[in-house]
């Protein structure tokens, strides 16, 4: 065991408590100078401390509700007499799949389903209110939305919030375009009463906002990160139509953000999965035109895959070569080299 491997755990603890003497501090700093692992520990502790000090999440209330619903079945109070809480916590087994929320299952998908059922009620009530022009019914819509996630108003954004089917589908069909050039399809969409605050676009808020009592707090415009998180939640829940609409709205409103750049790559992937290879290739191209680099390898590979599925041999070949040139060790390397060596891509010389 070398000196470096004897990490000074006690000095870390004293440092955390602010109890280091001068001599101990000198010894601690000297160790840090020569030990990558302890420098990493010092840095990553700060990283996680910052992470844990983040803002509260509005989705907490829904998770608490789900936990309360599942707790009776999951625990049954069997540990009531145990004197060893730490060991008990270690032994406590996770609930079986489906016990978290007995009626609707667990996790994001379950919340989506719960949200969907209540949203359906809200949508129906919203339609009645729009037809009758009655404020009381619209207030019911607002209160229903508040009931979706928390006891406290304003309502937190559900992870997957439904919106007008008509507007959603028109957005899903529209190409991704920045706010400076709004898509014709989006412009042509009739404004219909939105079903909740979480996904309402500013231009269509008026009907619901007017129905709220004076002084009611209006949900603020979601940030790019919030819109991105919402789109990701929709994608993970399997509602790709909603996810596409959310990504498009994100790109339209915040075209220069890193979230919008990532949205191009993700939309490309969604379109590729459903066989829309031309649009997918265009989306990957838009990501590659951005100055972002984090998804570049994936975008290059999947653009090549789009060309491959499209049967566009020359473009596919060029795309795989571009990938291998930029990322020689890419995880897609074997497939790329196989495709480049295929007779259909590299015709044999006569």
């Amino acid at each position, binding site marked *: 065991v070398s000196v470096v491997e004897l990490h000074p755990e006690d000095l870390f603890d004293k440092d955390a408590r602010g109890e280091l003497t001068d001599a101990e501090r000198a010894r601690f700093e000297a160790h840090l100078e020569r030990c990558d692992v302890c420098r990493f520990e010092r840095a990553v502790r700060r990283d996680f401390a910052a992470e844990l000090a983040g803002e509260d999440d509005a989705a907490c209330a829904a998770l608490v509700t789900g936990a309360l619903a599942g707790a009776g079945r999951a*625990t049954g109070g069997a540990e009531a007499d145990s004197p060893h809480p730490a060991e008990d916590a270690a032994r406590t087994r996770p609930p079986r799949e489906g016990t978290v929320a007995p009626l609707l299952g667990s996790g994001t998908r379950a919340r989506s389903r719960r949200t969907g059922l209540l949203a359906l009620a809200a949508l129906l009530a919203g339609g009645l209110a729009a037809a009758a022009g009655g404020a009381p019914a619209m207030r019911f819509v607002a209160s229903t939305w508040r009931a979706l996630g928390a006891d406290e108003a304003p309502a937190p954004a559900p992870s997957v919030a439904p919106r007008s089917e008509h507007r959603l589908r028109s957005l899903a069909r529209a190409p991704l375009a920045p706010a400076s050039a709004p898509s014709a399809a989006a412009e042509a969409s009739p404004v219909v009463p939105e079903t909740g605050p979480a996904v309402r676009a500013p231009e269509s808020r008026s009907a619901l906002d007017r129905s709220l009592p004076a002084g009611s707090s209006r949900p603020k415009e979601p940030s790019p990160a919030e819109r991105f998180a919402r789109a990701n939640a929709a994608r993970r829940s399997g509602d790709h139509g909603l996810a596409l609409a959310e990504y498009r709205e994100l790109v339209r409103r915040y075209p220069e953000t890193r979230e919008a750049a990532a949205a191009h790559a*993700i939309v490309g992937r969604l379109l590729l999965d459903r066989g829309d290879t031309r649009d997918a290739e265009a989306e990957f191209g838009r990501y590659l035109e951005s100055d972002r680099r984090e998804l570049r390898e994936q975008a290059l590979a999947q653009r090549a895959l789009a060309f491959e599925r499209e049967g566009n041999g020359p473009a596919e070949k060029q795309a795989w070569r571009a990938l291998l040139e930029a990322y020689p060790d890419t995880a897609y390397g074997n497939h790329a080299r196989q495709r480049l060596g295929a007779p259909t891509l590299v015709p044999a010389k006569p």
Partner: protein
Amino acid sequence: MPRERVDAAAVPSLALVRAAVAGDAAATARLLRGVAPRVVRVARAVLGAAHPDVDDVVQQSLIRLIGALPGFRGDCDITAYASTIAVRTALLARRRAHVARARHDPEGEPDQLIAEAVAPDDHLEAQNRMRLLRELLAELPEEQAEALALRMVLGLSLEEIARAAGAPQNTIRSRLRLAKEGLRKRIEQNPSLAATLAEVVS
């Protein structure tokens, strides 16, 4: 180095815990609402914010907390207790996801990459460090992973980890030393990370 501490004003009281144990449903709900934000942040810290199991881990952690409440002795605050449960639950989920991902094709769900794609540039180094630790946690033996997570994610002392694990401090030292050996190998495989660490001294 100051340790991150839970805001004392936000910590549910022992009286609330006792009321919840006594079967007061409203107290249980208030208790869970009090600790849930911290549990969410811990789950995200261990799994990564974009991990698809974050919500499930939070719910499972809260359910486990309710089950463990009768044995809670009040020798630490309930939020710290819930945090430890959340770390354990998240480590289990991370390990399961790691095994599942090993069977997955390389064109699979790019959630982790997406998380990196939207990390602010000035936080990329921090994101890289946290990602490296998360990956290591999924691969280490269970007891080493738990000790390392409680140490580096929650910032617990040797004494606190030993109490939570129900093991002697020297055992925890040994687990941490072995875990850090794995960490050292990871850092050596990542020259760019090692270069950024050169600046981390004070």
